[in-house]
């Protein structure tokens, strides 16, 4: 009992330290680090979180998460004022955001309904196919999606007189969304729904014989992931000021997979750790090796992380801690891979 209380106190202390660090961060660093590193990492992290949520608790790897975010982003762009005004913009932006979140969640449910009929590598392929269908559709439809050029100059709303475009506002918005969704995922994992999903991940047949509707739970999980990705899509649209088929194409899709994998697919925090690593590399690899070979460096780092630790940076961290704890205890260090 005392032990348990002790663990909880440490946990809260750790959490408040992390919160303090995240809140103090934008005041300690130059603007570039606030927006292009901080806020950008949260945007990517949120979309990757939707993938990690499905993978960690549902055992399902979906490559349609960027596409789901894209559905939300496109919906918001259509209902917002933008450079090539087509007149569909809603007067109140919260309605446009609500529409985007609903569209993203609906897309998640729909994709889930198709994807849960397969598993493993086949689910990967079918979700990738859905992504590519959406990519080519947006690229070729000029009436609604503006084809290859997409939407530019989307108006970013103001709240209480302060534009959400400012660096601090952007950072705090992305931070709040990231923390809220992370907490949501943590909470869901402990609900009967989350436990059922994890049960299905481990043994779908047993869960079915216990009376759970396996497919329905999986589709619902896709719906939750769709909502998370939709929030990421909305933030991504505001962050970039627009969206085009390139934003949801194969490169963007694979980038989200890379973020999730280098962070570690086993725990939701991996999504954010991976996003930070990815954004830092993307921005500073050029400074390390020059503009001709920076992609090679990025590739090598990813390769190294995946080879050194199959469960990503978070896994690497835990393994190192494990090892040093054993060294301290004077025990024999066993090599685990």
């Amino acid at each position: 009992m005392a032990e348990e209380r002790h663990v909880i106190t440490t946990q809260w202390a750790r959490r408040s330290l992390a919160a303090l660090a995240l809140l103090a961060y934008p005041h300690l660093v130059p603007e570039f680090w606030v927006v292009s590193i901080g806020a950008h990492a949260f945007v990517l992290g949120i979309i990757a979180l939707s993938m990690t949520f499905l993978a960690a608790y549902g055992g399902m790897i979906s490559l349609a998460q960027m596409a789901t975010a894209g559905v939300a982003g496109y919906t918001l762009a259509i209902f917002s004022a933008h450079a090539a005004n087509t007149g569909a913009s809603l007067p109140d932006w919260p309605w446009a955001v609500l529409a985007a979140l609903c569209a993203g969640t609906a897309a998640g449910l729909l994709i889930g309904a198709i994807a849960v009929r397969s598993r493993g590598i086949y689910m990967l392929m079918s979700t990738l196919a859905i992504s590519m269908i959406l990519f080519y559709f947006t690229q070729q439809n000029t009436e609604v999606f503006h084809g290859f050029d997409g939407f530019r100059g989307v108006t970013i709303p103001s709240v209480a007189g302060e534009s959400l475009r400012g660096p601090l506002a952007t950072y705090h918005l992305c931070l709040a969304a990231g923390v809220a969704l992370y907490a949501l995922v943590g909470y869901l994992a402990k609900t009967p729904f989350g436990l059922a999903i994890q049960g299905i991940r481990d043994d779908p047949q047993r869960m079915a014989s216990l009376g759970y509707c396996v497919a329905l739970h999986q589709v619902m999980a896709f719906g939750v992931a769709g909502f998370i990705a939709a929030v990421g899509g909305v933030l991504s649209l505001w962050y970039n000021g627009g969206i085009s088929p390139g934003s949801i194409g194969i490169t963007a899709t694979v980038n989200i997979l890379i973020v999730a994998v280098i962070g570690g697919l086993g725990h939701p925090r991996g999504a954010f750790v991976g996003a930070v690593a990815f954004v830092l590399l993307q921005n500073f690899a050029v400074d390390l090796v020059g503009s001709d070979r920076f992609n090679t460096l990025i590739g090598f780092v990813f390769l190294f992380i995946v080879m050194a630790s199959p469960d990503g940076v978070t896994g690497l961290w835990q393994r190192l801690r494990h090892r040093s704890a054993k060294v301290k205890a004077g025990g024999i260090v066993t090599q685990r891979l």
Partner: protein
Amino acid sequence: MKERMINMKDVNLKKTLLVIAAKINGKRINMKAVNLKKTLLIITATVTLASHAVAQTSVRIGGLATLDGPFVVLGQEAFRAMELAFEEANYMAGGKKIEWIKESSDGRPDIALAKARKLIEQDKVDVLIGPMSGGEGLSIKEYAKSVPAKTFVNGFSAAQETTLVSPSPNFFRFSPDGAQWQAGLGSYVYDAKGYRNVAVVSGDYSFGYTQVLGFMTEFCAKGGKVREKIWAPNGTKDFSSAIARIPDKVDAVYVMLGGADAVNFLTQYDQSGAKAPLIGGSNLLDQTVLSGKGPFRNRLVGIPSAHMVADGIEDAKYQNYVAKYKKRFPDALSAPSAPFFGYYIATKAVIEAMGQVAGDLGGDQAKFRSALAKVKLDTPAGSVSLDENRQSIANNYVTEVAQRADGVLYNKVVKVVPAVNQTLNQPRDAFVARGVPSRDNPSCP
């Protein structure tokens, strides 16, 4: 001194952390956390120091081009152009040393935006030269509005809206846009070639719409008719359905495709046995296509086209420019490309304006910007000045593919249209009122 300060801070932090840790754990001191904090602190300190270490005796110029994605070759040309322009100025501008920071995009607007942010906010460049393609240009222009104290000079992007519709006061474009690149072509094919009815096959994106508008504005004004417009998505491999849709009774087919799409179309058009002669958009007949080996090569001679620059310009100044390029970059292309020209004159303009204000970038660069807006450049392809939207007014060259004695194909200049402005020398209000180019604008069936 700085080192010392960091250490002092570190000690304090360590102490604080030790106290906190002791209170929480009651026993164990978490050394690892201390080390991590230390590392983080040093990183933060370094970052802050580095970003403030901008010497006043230098000017920082950022270059943004595509060393990744489909436009890699163009990106290499862009950086060559900046290098040559800097070398000609001995890396000095207005008495200040030039510091050059390069960043690479892959042609996507999002990536270009992220890289521009990095150049401006992290690398603290004073002037940014770039980007390469239309969508990137639109996104950089929007970003430019949010950093009014910096100056942006376009590299090669040619979307019309960038400077025509809600321009940014700190965004300058010394290269003409995609519609200006077609000036002279419409009337040339109407008068000299006698074409009256044409069909259009074009890439289905803003640059394609812009070029088609540039061509049709003149052609339709003369009385020509565009019977059918066929839009092909970028990266189309199979053009057979597009070719099948070309009406039988057209005098010619206007083709606005580039790179691999151009080669694919030309090959399949030749194989289909179609007879109608071709008219080229600005990218159809660049050196990569002209030096191609396919059977379509025989049909290239005589195809008219137009661009802001042409390898067949006979002028001594232009030939001198080609010779300089070949001498400095012997392993590069056989002649400087259009993006090379775009980035070259942009860089030249920046150096020129810096000289005029003697390197004074004070007052949020206001003096420098007003000098830049008034720069009159004497380029290898004629003089270039800017209009009130800071958009280029420049010569345009109508060309026809011809064969040199050694069998090499090149774009021979057949007509020079002097001082083309963004509204193609039509009244501004009427031109703007017709709206941005799209699939259906303009139309003269």
